[in-house]
């Protein structure tokens, strides 16, 4: 009986110790932030006005894209994309510089005379109060892909922010490097570069791309797999910090599984939208949201098809691009291996597989093992000394 009391006392004491360690103290004053201020929210009327302004911006952008397509004229003296400036116009010398850089960039992509011509509409910032109505959208890139009304023109809308507006108007900062403009123009081409390089995609590929807003064909690039200076993966930051993991787990499960090196996840991430028979709108206007990299289904998806094209060669990629077969079949045929396995290897070029699931710290693991060893030893010792009378 006495030994039982000791055991009970020990158990209660242990519980008390654990409670002491884990339960928060009571009665103390909570230390909140010094300023628990609440910022004002817009009134309902203001929110409505902002919503209408957004709707107008979208309609206005679509209208301008369609009007530009109607009025654009091809400049036969150049090989690169046709450039149209909207808003303030740069000087003739500035225009020639941009066109020369665009031509160089175009040739760098391996493009020359193409069946589908690309038109780059560069919208410069307006001076405040210079236009009537809401401020036009200066943040979202948009593309008008070829359709039945015009099968040979793809228009890319590239808004110039404050920095690029100054550069195009001849006020480039002295520290500007020459290749920055080329990179900026190249990043603005988006799906139009694919249209120019490979023509109009087949129905299944186009439907797949439309279902996922062309997120795997935003950048044709020039330097091959893992060969660009910067990708959306860089925006996740450093895995030592918690926000990296917040960013990782904000992606869909298949995307995260692909980052962890699981080929099933990679396959799902790539083929998402391939089963849907998405209706392709006419006109098809692809708009990239601000922060589109936070909503990708594959990382770094923006360059996925460009890397596929470089890896399999032009002919095989062209076959895939125009194939009437379902996307998974056509892509696997072009890659000559399962989509998931190729993508999993492709992913490795950018990032080492991340570890998923709970990971206990080394100290905690060692402590747990020590406690377990003690417990087992104590039980074994007790059992070995037990005597039946």
């Amino acid at each position: 009986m006495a030994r039982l009391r000791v055991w009970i006392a020990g158990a209660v004491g242990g519980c008390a110790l654990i409670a002491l360690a884990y339960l928060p103290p009571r009665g103390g004053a909570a230390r909140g932030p010094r300023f628990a201020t609440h910022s004002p929210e817009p009134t309902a009327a203001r929110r409505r006005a902002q919503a209408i302004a957004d709707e107008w911006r979208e309609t206005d952008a679509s209208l301008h894209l369609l009007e530009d397509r109607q009025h654009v004229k091809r400049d036969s003296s150049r090989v690169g994309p046709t450039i149209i400036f909207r808003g303030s116009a740069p000087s003739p010398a500035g225009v020639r510089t941009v066109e020369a850089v665009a031509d160089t960039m175009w040739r760098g992509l391996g493009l020359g005379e193409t069946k589908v011509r690309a038109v780059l509409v560069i919208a410069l910032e307006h001076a405040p109060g210079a236009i009537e109505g809401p401020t036009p959208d200066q943040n979202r890139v948009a593309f008008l892909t070829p359709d039945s009304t015009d099968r040979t023109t793809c228009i890319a809308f590239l808004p110039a922010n404050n920095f690029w507006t100054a550069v195009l108007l001849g006020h480039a900062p002295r520290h500007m490097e020459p290749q920055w403009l080329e990179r900026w123009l190249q990043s603005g081409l988006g799906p139009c570069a694919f249209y120019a390089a490979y023509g109009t995609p087949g129905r299944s590929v186009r439907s797949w791309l439309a279902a996922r807003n062309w997120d795997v064909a935003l950048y044709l690039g020039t330097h091959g797999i893992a060969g660009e200076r910067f990708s959306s993966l860089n925006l996740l930051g450093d895995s030592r910090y918690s926000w990296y993991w917040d960013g990782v787990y904000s992606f869909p499960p298949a995307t995260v599984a692909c980052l962890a090196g699981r080929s099933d996840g990679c396959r799902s991430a790539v083929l998402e939208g391939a089963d849907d028979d998405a209706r392709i709108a006419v006109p098809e206007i692809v708009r990239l949201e601000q922060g589109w990299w936070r909503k990708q289904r594959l990382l770094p998806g923006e360059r996925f098809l460009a890397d596929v094209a470089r890896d399999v060669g032009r002919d095989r990629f062209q076959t895939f691009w125009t194939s009437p077969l379902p996307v998974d079949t056509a892509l696997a045929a072009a890659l000559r291996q399962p989509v998931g396995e190729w993508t999993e290897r492709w992913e490795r070029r950018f990032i080492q597989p991340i570890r998923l699931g709970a990971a206990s710290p080394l100290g905690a693991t060692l402590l747990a093992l020590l406690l377990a060893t003690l417990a087992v030893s104590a039980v074994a010792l007790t059992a070995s000394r037990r005597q039946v009378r």
Partner: protein
Amino acid sequence: MFRRFWLPLLLGVLASPLRGQDTLVDRLRIRADSLLRTWQQAVTIANLADSLERERATSGRDTIAVGALRIITNPSPLPLRQAAALAWPAIESLYGSAAADLAERPYLIRAADPDSSARRVVLHVGVEVPWDLDLRATTMLLLTTVPVAPPDRPLGEWLTGGLRPAIHPREDRTAVYLELVTAPSQATRGCFLGDIARCIDALGLGDTAHLLERWYPSAAERRAIVSQSFADFFNHGDNVQPFRECVAGRDTSCTALLRSLPPGALPKPLTEAARVSLVRDALRLGGRDAYRRLLRDPETAIGDRLAQAAGVGVDSLVAGWRNAALAARPAPVALPWWAIGVAVGWVTVFAGCGLSSSRWRA
């Protein structure tokens, strides 16, 4: 007859997609015009609603006036009047005659019960704070939320933010001193040693060409920036090779990597705190109209604007700023004479305890 009938029909069929596009463009144009009209009406209504909200937020409230500060608030134990009396001299000394404009831009503060769980009215105007803030916190609230108009874009970008009165002027200058001493940049070091041209470079006031070479002229500095500040950024894709070469000591790779950075991403050798303290110095030197002169011409270079505001040349301004920063050197830790004895005594006690322990006895 047959041809005459079919040819226009055929042309009409061929042209129908173009007509369809025209129809779509017309439709979009009508929609855009309609949305624009609706938006104009909505903005008028929103302005009215905001005005009513503002009226509602101010009616039946107390107005506290200290200097040109106007604080519209609900009755509460929040020590706003005392805080305003403390904040106003600091605000006026920074903005000078421009501080008089604050009479037209009141603070709207709603003091709320911090312990109440009652549902609060949605706040559309001003800020809401708990009414149990002490005098120091309330003063800081007023100093950090001065309702002054934001600076123009070039000045805002150079400052990387806004300009606020100094809350801890001495500590701010000490922070600048520490930057001058510790920043891994020869420009900053040159500034610390008295080269005013280097100070102007480090503050981003001079020629912005070749900033990399001006700010970080030595190979070791460039390598340090790449390997410490941008290791995760550059250690990807085709940057891996130049990154490794840079870390191994190849300066051309370091330079190429740093040149590829987006505009404005090169770390500044002196941070925003140094720039803000320079502006405060310029405003202090320039007298009551200095702030107005600073904002007068946004197209002018920042260095010239600061010189106009201060009423002295930019070299003199920067030299004065540097001297003030050096004068704010943090005081070295001074040990009293008896502390040495106490330290030696404790060492002796512990050594004695250790040596007299039974384990060390033979």
